[in-house]
């Protein structure tokens, strides 16, 4: 805002009025509730997208659009790739207009989306990964996903099993169609790569990314993470785990 005489007088008026009432506190929406409410909105929007086009009769005009839109998206993908310096392969048969095309690079990870495939590469290096930012970027790409940082205060009845980030106690999940949605996971030396085809995620399922060390040992977030599909209502939180350096004893000896 520019400090024009008008804005200054409005500010003064606001301050004067504020003094006439008790301060109104600063209530905040907790991150877990924020995520749940957002997910509810996004599911409603996605439901609308799934049901609306089916009601429309197909015509020559819609056929022309079906061809033109993927070409436009492919062009947008090339433009974004050239800006970020990451080459993208464009697909002329692309569909699924809700998923945006592009590459996003952030500290600790790269997120790449073509019209069919989303690739997340978490770099094998000590970084404090901004998981809220990752959630935001997945949202920007139009992917229905839920990013969890392992929460030390999580008391949702869900337990981590052993040292691996497997989970026990999820109400409806994990869903059984992870393979059908093209979800793969591979360690490729420089980083761990997850691939998923968002269009193939079954209706009602949500992709989840779980980083159990993110809160307890942020720089080691990259060491342990999993992805899968959740059915039904996603849990508000998932438990944290602690990182134990397996070579700590040897390092002390040298």
């Amino acid at each position: 805002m520019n400090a024009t005489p008008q804005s200054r007088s409005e500010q003064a008026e606001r301050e004067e009025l504020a003094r006439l009432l008790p301060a109104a506190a600063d209530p905040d929406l907790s991150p877990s509730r924020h995520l749940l409410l957002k997910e509810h909105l996004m599911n409603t929007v996605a439901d609308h997208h799934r049901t609306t086009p089916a009601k429309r009769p197909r015509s020559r005009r819609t056929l022309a659009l079906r061809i033109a839109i993927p070409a436009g998206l492919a062009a947008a993908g090339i433009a974004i790739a050239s800006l970020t310096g990451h080459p993208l392969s464009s697909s002329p048969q692309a569909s699924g207009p809700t998923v945006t095309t592009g590459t996003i690079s952030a500290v600790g990870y790269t997120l790449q989306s073509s019209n069919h495939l989303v690739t997340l590469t978490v770099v094998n290096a000590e970084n404090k990964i901004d998981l809220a930012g990752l959630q935001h970027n997945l949202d920007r790409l139009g992917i229905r996903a839920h990013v969890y940082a392992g929460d030390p205060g999580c008391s949702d009845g869900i337990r981590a099993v052993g040292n691996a980030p497997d989970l026990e106690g999820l109400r409806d999940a994990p869903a059984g169609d992870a393979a059908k949605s093209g979800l793969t996971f591979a360690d490729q030396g420089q980083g761990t790569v997850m691939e998923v085809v968002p269009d193939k995620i079954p209706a009602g399922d949500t992709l989840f990314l779980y980083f159990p060390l993110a809160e307890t040992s942020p720089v080691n977030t990259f060491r342990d993470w999993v992805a899968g599909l959740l059915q039904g209502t996603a849990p508000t939180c998932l438990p944290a785990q602690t990182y134990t350096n397996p070579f700590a004893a040897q390092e002390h000896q040298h």
Partner: protein
Amino acid sequence: MDISIRAGVRAGNPAAFGQIFEEHGRAVHRYAVRVTGDWATAEDVVSLTFLEAWRLRAKVEPDGESLRPWLLGIATNVLRNTRRAARRHTNAMAHLPLPAVVPDFADELAGRIADAAQLAAAKAALEQLRPAEREVFALCVWEGLDHAAVAEALGKPVGTIRSRLSRARKRLQELTEKQLSASASAQGNMQRRPARGQVLDDCASAATTLKETHR
């Protein structure tokens, strides 16, 4: 940037809706908690506001700045008649996550108890105003919108906003005078002004902030 967001919202792009929820969801929630004094109701108001935003997306002006005034205007309508808004979105609201009765963390719970006393005091004072003046006061003073943005939110001319604020000020000053004289005769001059953001004892002591302000 907001022009492209506006275009995305008008086009019903899910990513654009995700982004406006990220950017403004908390502001809508804060506004709803302050006006209702109730966290669970406020969460319903947030959901209904964004469902209404989805329904009304074609009405977004193609050009303009932040969409916050538009969203707070929708929230104001939802707050005026939450049941009517809920009826419009019966199916979607049936899938709404159950409200968190108890916050996740002890710190959050303690903060919420402190906020509750402060909010109750502010809400009780705000209720001394007429509904139209309340809305303008809350949007302008608590949410920090300027006159033009409040006018956009409420779909009223800027002149109307100014006159409502002026009436609100006059009314609050009259109440202050009354409380000053009542308080002076009953308690003398021993009350102290609680600092902003502190836990207030109760509505009555919070209202005594009016007294100290004018010395």
